[in-house]
């Protein structure tokens, strides 16, 4: 009796642990485990449209991070973003825009890569990657603006979300104006 | 264990109740009641049903707390004991419940072994022999491997008795040990109580309303009614008591101080109400 109970309980525990492992590895993408290896950058937009916390940030359609939260700073939308620490070579003059996946899909931030300053200088990219940016004495003259996105960097080079209602409104308004002119 | 035993000789009375009052809600169950239980005797507590005799045992066992008064067990006031001290004291008393209260998921053997396993760290062979000895003394050694559901009512009570004496307590409280038993098992239990008292020197408190059975073995008997003890004495003294209440109880008269009729308004007016 007691032995049977012990065996059944063991069996139960094994099924439960298998299920938990299944949920962890088959259902959840394992790469999202690593929460701590992100760095935080900020961006100021004119209009964030339907952007929400946890919306993705993409480069060329690949998710590289998520939005931590959105607040107002000096009455402008101020977006806090967590970007995967593996992608630490995003040039600082890259621009952000808010796009919509599909016609009705969720909105996300797309980063269009700029040109890294260091590659304009005599250094080639491979070389720069070998050295830490902050320790590099050769880029000291540009201390205020780092070459790449890094912790605490604030991006001003942004374009606002396209709000469809506004676009339609503008279209109607301009076509109305055209009619007025004809009349 | 021996230390406890020698400790217990300090007082002549194992249990003393002084001026104890107990209320359930606003309803008084006991008012200023006094009771003494001398060491090594069989004490019977009798009374009509529903008078709170089981409550009295629970008060002595510390499961209920009186509103006022003292309940001394071997000199210690039960209601004011700390929790851990109360649990220590309880190892020296045990209680045989009306239903037996065997653990339904354990065999008879494991039931008797339960208090031993909980409180003593005995090696398995010693424990087994001890349990079998206890079971032998109640005549149930052959039933050691049965489940409680396979026992008859009388056997269940005997098994529970074996469990109650497992720790060799100083006091055993029997809650209605004869209720609902056939004459044979009633006789067996009467014999067992007397044997336990004589051979082990245990103090027994027997709560019952089976007058003849208990008076045949009790050294001293109390009758409880109207929230306190109305009479006490040996069985001879009780039988010669002139109190109408005692007479009614002992002889089983239908009407007397305890009325046959539950209090109601006048019979005739109640009936005539339906006619008019």
């Amino acid at each position, binding site marked *: 009796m007691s032995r049977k109970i012990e065996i059944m309980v063991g069996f139960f525990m094994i099924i439960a642990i298998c299920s938990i492992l299944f949920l962890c590895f088959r*259902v959840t993408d394992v790469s999202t485990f690593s929460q701590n290896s992100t760095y935080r950058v900020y961006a100021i937009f004119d209009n964030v449209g339907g952007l929400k916390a946890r919306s993705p940030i993409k480069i060329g359609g690949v998710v590289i991070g998520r939005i931590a939260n959105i607040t107002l700073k000096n009455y402008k939308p101020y977006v806090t973003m967590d970007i995967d620490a593996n992608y630490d070579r995003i040039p600082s003059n890259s621009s952000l825009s808010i796009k919509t996946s599909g016609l009705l899909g969720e909105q996300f931030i797309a980063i269009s890569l700029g040109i890294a300053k260091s590659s304009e200088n005599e250094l080639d990219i491979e070389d720069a990657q070998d050295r830490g940016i902050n320790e590099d004495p050769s880029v000291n003259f540009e201390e205020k603006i780092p070459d790449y996105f890094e912790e605490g960097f604030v991006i001003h080079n942004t374009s606002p979300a396209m709000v469809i209602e506004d676009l339609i409104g503008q279209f109607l308004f301009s076509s109305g104006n055209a009619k007025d002119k004809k009349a | 264990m021996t230390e406890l035993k020698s400790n217990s000789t300090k007082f002549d009375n194992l249990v003393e109740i002084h001026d104890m009052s107990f209320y359930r809600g606003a309803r008084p169950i006991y008012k200023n009641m006094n009771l003494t239980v001398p060491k090594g005797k069989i004490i019977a507590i009798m009374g009509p049903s529903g008078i709170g005799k089981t409550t009295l045992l629970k008060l002595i066992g510390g499961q209920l707390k009186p509103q006022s008064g003292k309940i001394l067990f071997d000199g210690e006031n039960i209601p004011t004991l700390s929790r851990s001290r109360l649990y220590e004291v309880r190892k020296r008393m045990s209680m045989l419940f009306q239903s037996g209260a065997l653990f339904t998921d354990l065999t008879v053997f494991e039931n008797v072994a339960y208090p031993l396993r*909980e409180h003593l760290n005995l090696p398995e062979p010693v424990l087994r022999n001890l349990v079998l000895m206890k079971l032998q003394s109640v005549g149930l050694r052959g039933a050691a491997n049965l489940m409680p559901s396979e026992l008859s009512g009388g056997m269940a009570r005997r098994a529970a008795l074996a469990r109650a004496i497992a720790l060799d307590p100083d006091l055993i409280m029997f809650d209605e040990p004869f209720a609902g038993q056939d004459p044979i098992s009633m006789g067996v239990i009467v014999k067992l109580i007397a044997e336990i008292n004589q051979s082990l020197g245990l103090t027994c408190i027997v709560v019952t309303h089976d007058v003849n059975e208990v008076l045949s073995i009790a050294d001293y008997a109390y009758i409880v009614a109207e929230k306190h003890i109305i009479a006490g004495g040996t069985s001879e003294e009780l039988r010669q008591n002139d109190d109408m209440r005692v007479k009614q109880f002992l002889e089983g008269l239908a009407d007397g101080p305890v009325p046959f009729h539950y209090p109601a308004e006048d019979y005739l007016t109640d009936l005539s109400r339906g006619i008019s």
Partner: protein
Amino acid sequence: MLNILARIGQSGINFIALFGQAGIMLFGALVGKPEFKKQFPLWVKQFYFVGVQSLTIIVVSGLFIGMVLALQGYFILTTFSAEASLGMLVALALLRELGPVVAGLLFAGRAGSALTAEIGLMKATEQLSSMEMMAVDPLRRIIAPRFWAGFFCLPFLTAIFIAVGILGGALVGVDWKGIDSGFFWSSIQNNVDWWHDTVNCFIKSFAFSIAATWIALFNGYNSLPTSEGISKATTSTVVYSSLVILGLDFILTSLMFS
């Protein structure tokens, strides 16, 4: 008017008193020096009664809920030709809401009512009293192992429920309706977030397990020792734990997903 007010006040006081009693019971059961050697066999036994015996109902209902979810989801998603997201729909629905809640409700019905009835019956047959008279604390011996078994078993059962549900969804979506299995699983992996979905699911599940087990144990411990009292206690265990699970779910969801 004043009578109504008094009645409201009275029921409020009663509720708080009951809650306090339940708290004292749980405190008495769980606080104290642990006795692993004596407790362990009791734990195993309770894991059997609470966990293993609920396994069948959890697996079967998980399978069917996963399958029906996939089927309904498929019909709706095909109208947007978005059936590739079926996996995401099934997995998120199960992880965020259905898994913890339905497993909790089934647990309350299966294990919770059994716990209440068992303890109520132990009380009615004076087993708890006799244990107390043997100087054994019934809170430590009876309540504590059952509480811990319930506390750990419900999250385990929830994990099994969700896993089986997702597999059932895959069965319908992939094997029957012919969605590409790569699409199915990748839509799950891309949209299920470890912290946001999986961890929150288990937080919910632990909250439900505390609530359901606690209610079940207290109802049994506090039941009137009559057959009517036990049946009443069993009913109120199922009713109250279901209501508390649904209420807690709303509160937790609004905290987690806002």
